[in-house]
């Protein structure tokens, strides 16, 4: 018996040696690749990293195809798409057949709310970090406020008012939509607050500064038809004297010129990614390209009718390709066929192909708001306030002069409506391929009628996109937009 006991002890010793630690310790979960928020958010460096996280979500650079072109231009009179696998995703937006199941709508919704979340993390934790000097504290807060408000404004363009989530608390995960007035008031105030907190210049291109916040506010006021406020903020921005028009519009979008004074708010792009993927969709078939470029099967095309609205001497036309000699030496015409039938196949080469592009990624920054837009916004706001006026005409002529087209005169526009019609055209000529056409048409009331005239089954409710179906299902407090 004693022998057995000895053996038992021996066994106990053997096991004891094998694992000299307690059970609880052994089953503790070790983390090697993630950070503990308790310590991570206690330093300025940690706060900065969270801010970069927020910026990364706020920048719609890699997703611009869906956001800038598919959602914002395909349902308009400018652009269409065919070919490639993308055609089936693009068609609903070209043909006014989108529905709440669209992945693109959900994609942008999720991305913007992640930006909001990251901004909220920063705003909730930054005051606990006592080592940050007040000036930088205000700046960080301003950047986070801007990112959050801009994300809301971005969603508003597509969906109308969306839930204003201002905390990281998970107590209420099912927020309801605010009224339009509440939403607009919050976003306006927040952008104004951010503009106050932000410096006029920031060290890194792409970082939010005062001008960026004012630009977004100008456009937000304009799109919500708060004409006076829009005109005022535009004035404030102009008076910063920081921005001016770049002389050669046709070279403005080339990578080597992107450090200009005209771009205010940009989605910065890099050739190594996240890149601007517009050009692979714009090169026509067998277009001679550099070996480091790629030409996709999906083709972004321009309606011939839109092309034909340009003044032939307009320098902005230089950014179109209407014919080319393909790699097989054959001349290809893109505007019209031999019978004069429109081919709707001209290509906007606005984003001058980047010689250093890597495959589909070109380095051209995507301007969200540039100075020309501020000028035309103020022109439009003043017209809406008091009808045609000399300042509006002068503002428009700044743009036209650069484009080398004849100036317009106040006398040419007997009514507010006439000048509004011109502004829509002018904005089209100026901002094609920049994802502005949908909001412009909606604001000026031609979005639906223009679609109907192209033969689409457009309904008044189409001015708003449906909230993503998954959101409606996950949140019973969320009310779907009418018509969907």
């Amino acid at each position, binding site marked *: 018996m004693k022998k057995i006991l000895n053996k038992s002890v021996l*066994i*106990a010793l053997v096991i004891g040696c094998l694992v000299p630690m307690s*059970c609880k310790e052994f089953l503790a979960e070790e983390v090697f690749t993630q950070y503990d928020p308790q310590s991570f958010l206690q330093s300025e460096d940690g706060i900065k990293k969270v801010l970069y996280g927020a910026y990364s979500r706020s920048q719609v650079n890699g997703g611009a195809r869906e956001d800038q072109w598919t959602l914002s231009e395909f349902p308009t009179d400018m652009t269409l798409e065919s070919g490639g*696998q993308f055609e089936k995703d693009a068609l609903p937006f070209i043909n006014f057949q989108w529905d709440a199941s669209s992945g693109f709508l959900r994609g942008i919704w999720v991305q913007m709310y992640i930006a909001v979340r990251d901004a909220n993390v920063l705003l909730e934790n930054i005051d606990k970090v006592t080592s940050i000097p007040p000036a930088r504290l205000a700046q960080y807060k301003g950047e986070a406020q801007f990112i959050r408000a801009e994300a809301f404004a971005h969603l508003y363009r597509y969906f109308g008012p969306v839930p204003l989530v201002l905390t990281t608390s998970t107590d209420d995960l099912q927020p309801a939509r605010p009224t339009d007035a509440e939403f607009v008031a919050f976003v306006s105030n927040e952008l104004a607050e951010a503009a106050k907190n932000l410096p006029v210049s920031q060290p890194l291109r*792409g970082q939010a500064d005062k001008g960026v916040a004012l630009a977004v506010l100008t456009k937000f006021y304009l799109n919500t038809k708060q004409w006076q406020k829009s005109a005022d903020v535009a004035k404030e921005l102009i008076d910063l004297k920081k921005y001016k028009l770049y002389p050669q519009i046709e070279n403005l979008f080339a990578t080597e010129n992107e450090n200009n004074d005209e771009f205010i708010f940009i989605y910065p792009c890099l050739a190594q990614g996240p890149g601007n993927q517009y050009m692979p969709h714009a090169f026509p078939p067998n277009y001679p390209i550099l070996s*480091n470029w790629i030409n996709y099967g999906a083709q972004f095309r321009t309606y011939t009718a839109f092309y034909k609205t340009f003044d032939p001497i307009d320098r902005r036309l230089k950014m179109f390709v209407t014919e080319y000699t393909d790699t097989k030496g054959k001349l290809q015409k893109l505007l019209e066929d031999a019978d004069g039938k429109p081919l709707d196949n001209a290509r906007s080469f606005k984003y001058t192909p980047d010689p250093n592009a890597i495959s589909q990624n070109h380095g051209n920054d995507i301007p969200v708001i540039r100075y020309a837009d501020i000028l035309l916004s103020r022109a439009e706001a003043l017209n809406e306030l008091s009808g045609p006026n000399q300042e509006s005409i002068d503002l428009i002529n700044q743009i036209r002069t650069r484009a080398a087209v004849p100036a317009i005169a106040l006398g040419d526009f007997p009514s507010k409506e006439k000048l509004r019609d011109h502004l829509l055209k002018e904005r089209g000529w100026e901002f094609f391929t920049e994802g502005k056409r949908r909001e412009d048409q909606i604001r000026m009331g031609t979005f639906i009628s223009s679609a109907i005239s192209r033969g689409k089954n457009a309904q008044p409710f189409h001015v708003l996109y449906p909230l993503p179906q998954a959101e409606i299902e996950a949140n019973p407090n969320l009310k779907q937009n009418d018509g969907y």
Partner: protein
Amino acid sequence: MERNLRIVVLAGLCLGWTQPMQAQLLARVTTPSSNLYRSEQAKMIKLRDALAELKKIHQVDILFFGRNIEKYDVAARDYRASKSVARDLDQLLKPLNLIYKQSGKRGYVITEKQAEQKASPENKITAAAGMELLTPIAAATIQLRTQREVSLAIADISVSGKIIASDNGETLPGVSVLVKGTSQGTTTDQAGEFTVSVPDQSSVLVFSFVGYVSQEVTVGSKTRLNLSLEPDTKVLSEVVVVGYGTQKKSDLTGSVASIGEKDFTQGVNNSALQLLNGKASGVQISQSSSAPGGGIAIRIRGAGSINSSNQPLIVIDGFPGASATSISPEDIESIQILKDASAAAIYGSRAANGVVLITTKKGKSGTPKVNYSAYLGVQTVARRMGLLTTPQYIDVLNDLSMEQSGKPRYTPEQISAIGGGTDWQDQIFHTALAQNHQLSFSGGSDKSNYYLGLNYLNQDGVVLNSGLKKYNIRLNYEINPSDKLKVTLNLNTNRSTTTNILTTNSGNENAGPINSALQFDPTISPEKDEDGQYRYNPLISLENPLALINGFTQKNVNNRTFGTLSADYTLLKGWTTTLRLGADIANGRNDSYNSRTTQKGLSAGGIGSIGVGEDTHWISELFTTYAHTFNGIHQLSILGGATLEKYDISNVGASSIGFLSDASLTNLLQSGDGDRGDNVSSGRSTNQLNSYLGRVNYTLKEKYLLTASIRADGTSRFSDKNKFAFFPSFALGWRISEEPFMQQSNLFSDLKLRMSYGQSGNQAIGNFQTLTTFVASGNAVLGGGLLQGVEPARIPNSDLRWETTEEVDFGIDFAIIKGRVSGSLEYYIKNTRDQLFNKPLPTTSGFQNILVNFGAVRNQGIDLMIETRNLVNAFKWNTNFTFSTLKNTVVELPDFIPQLLTGGVGFTANYAIVKEGAPMRSFYGYQTDGIYQTTDEVKDSPQPNFKPGYPRFVDQNGDGKITPDDRVILGSPFPKLLFGLNNSFSYRGVTLEALITAVQGISSLDNNIVESLYPINFDRNRVAVHYLDRWTPDNPGAQYPSGVNPSVYGGALAVNSLTISDASFIRLKTMTLSYAIPIKKGIRSASVYVAADNLLTITKFLGFDPDANASETGIERASYNSYPLNRTVRFGVNVGF
């Protein structure tokens, strides 16, 4: 005895309290439970019975003359079985003046001293009356001194012959040959030869041998009788491996399918799982990819987990979590599948999907054996996709183009310039060779034994530039330094090199060569152009298939070593403690290089990446077993133990682009464009398991069986409050055939009823789900560079716990007509609750979902296995039949997810639904109902914008529109029925075997059909059948729609009853014709065979293989660019020395 028990318990408790995690005590039956102990009560037992017991205990055969020993009794008390049969025999026989001689490896002949002395010099013994052969149980050879001169006086006819084994063609020495109804007889000699004299032609000879089925032959006019005896599988597989021990098959109460080497499904097998194809009921083996080294999906009784893994736990020689591919299938002796929760529950939190126990070969004492086996296989693509040929393509595209735009796609000049065009499948497929060599050495003595296996497999793929090379070495070594200690080493080391073609589930530029070959423009020449680039059609965003084959290389090298070292120590008789240490170390490296040969590689200047990882897993187990029989009728065995395990995974990745030259491939990553192209990554994660386990087996009078087990599993992955969970099980069995009332009837030689209940778990979740952490995520572009962001990782859920599967199983095991028909029938219901669910969150929170436990899935079905020996004489015919039904139902879903739409392959998404009352991940889409014929019909339809020739979608809810609400369930990813039918015919060393497997009632999304019906762009090639019978005004009865502007009836509508296909099939899986070559000198056995795999598949499915699945081991089924199935003809040889 009782005191010993108390000490076990005490020791266990002490260990448990002082070192809670390390208490690993328990009892186990190490010596088979013995009836000897039963007779302890009686003072004396018959010698005959004592010998019968010894025979069982030592697994030997003992021959004696009944009259010689009938008179002897021995004192039971004096006798205890020891480790040595010789010692036991000495002890028993010496006092009785009996002697024994060893005969062969495991045979013993008992004679009286005088008889022996007399017989020995003349080398013969009189075999007058009373010679008895105890029915043997062990698979060992036995030989007896030749007894040719038996009863010459009454002999009229002399018959001679040779006996061989039917399974391997080896000669059988020592086979008993008796004249039926007499005690005359003989045994075969070393060469398997016998000569016996029989009274007349009507005499019947009875041939019997250990481990083989006895045969009776009427002599007739023959004087020469050559026979092959068939192994008795019932006997061979009598002891089966169960978790943490072995059990007699007759004592099993749970559902365990046991497949021995002889029954393995042969083929060019890389994974051990392939050996089980069609051989076990309730087990579905799918070759999800037929690429060399491709994935094998195994489902045991359906699938219970909606979101976690549904792959079973693989245990190799007691080491859990091993991989079925890092082993040579030919080193495997047997595979047990623990199907129900009661059998599997001992593996606790990893057992919910069943457990596969793999046991490798061991050496046996005796002459060393050398075996060599090899085959050469010739593989071809079993089935190609029926695409439009070039002339058909031109015609179809011209017609479609005319109908769409009024202009033909090709002018007559273009058509004549195209010529014959290109069949791109021809360009990428070829006939490929596979070869396999296995060399093994085994042997041993009573103190040690060894098995050394060497394997080399080289399989070229039927798609160019793909293949697998695998090297495997296994050493199993067992030593017994003393009677009490046994040390076992099982060590396996393995290296595999896989060359893969690009296989992705994406389309366009990212598609692989198979997708490209199916859709590439057949009017383009396969030759390169003047610039040395492969040609392509700029409107088709696909790489040239040959550019992908020749310009893209992907190589995967894996080195994996795993093994266990265990020590069994017998503390007291019946009480053994085992310490087992195991480790599995896998190092892998992936290289991929996309050269300038492809468009993508050209634009990036070459894309190269290397990924390296190391996975380690160690385990330490201590368990103890105790077995005892009380009062001769209560057999009890107890097992207890504890285990610790740790997994540690780390990886490094590096990539670059813009290389100086393609020549260096991935061997010079620093020659890439450092500023713009370099990318590095790394990661590491660990997780730990700590478990305690216990099991009790109790048998009353060998008739009433009870098994109960429990396992407590703790994991690092859950929060403190849910770290541990308990997985209990119990099972009852009743061996009705042992009841006296049954023994009067001869119908059932075995009949057992059993019933079991058990719980098991599934912890297949990621790390950190219960923790609040921040992760490096999101790259902001600021100041012209990338700045790394940090973001919160999740909303943690500290309440997470295991998914739990509860299963009830009712079974009946039977054998009738003297074992000629045997089998089992089982019914089970399996409920998996507390599903780990990604609950979709309103993303206004910034998070898309949170992991929660909710919902239940039920699997129920019938498993039937039948084994019959239809003909047992010279011509033999055996049949094995497996049949199972399965019904998978989502029973309960969280209210927050009334349904869950998932699935994504190519550009088709959301085709699978999880919905209460339907099978998990059922196919969900639009029902079509014919084709619109007239504009009037279209005008009044729910789709007024359609055109004649478009498919008619069914407006299920009758609201006059086709909306997502009109989607219905179109099929299930689970088979309703599975069956396997194996027939084996043999005659004189020639054996023909054929295995048919079938999967019925299963569907699959065929995304190649989606891309055929809805081409991504106009110029892509298509599946012929859809366009040769497409609707046109002249062909109104067509089966398929017009194909004119198909995107109008595609998009989200593409998931419909035209693209969800019935993937049922019946397959002649393998057919083998083998011949056992008559033995030559110096060779123990030799056989040759020719086999054909995947000879025939009957299916309605249009793709390469209805069994293939793009989601690999996932539940969702989709066929998309699957690597084509191989039809293989193998020529093989087996030689034993």
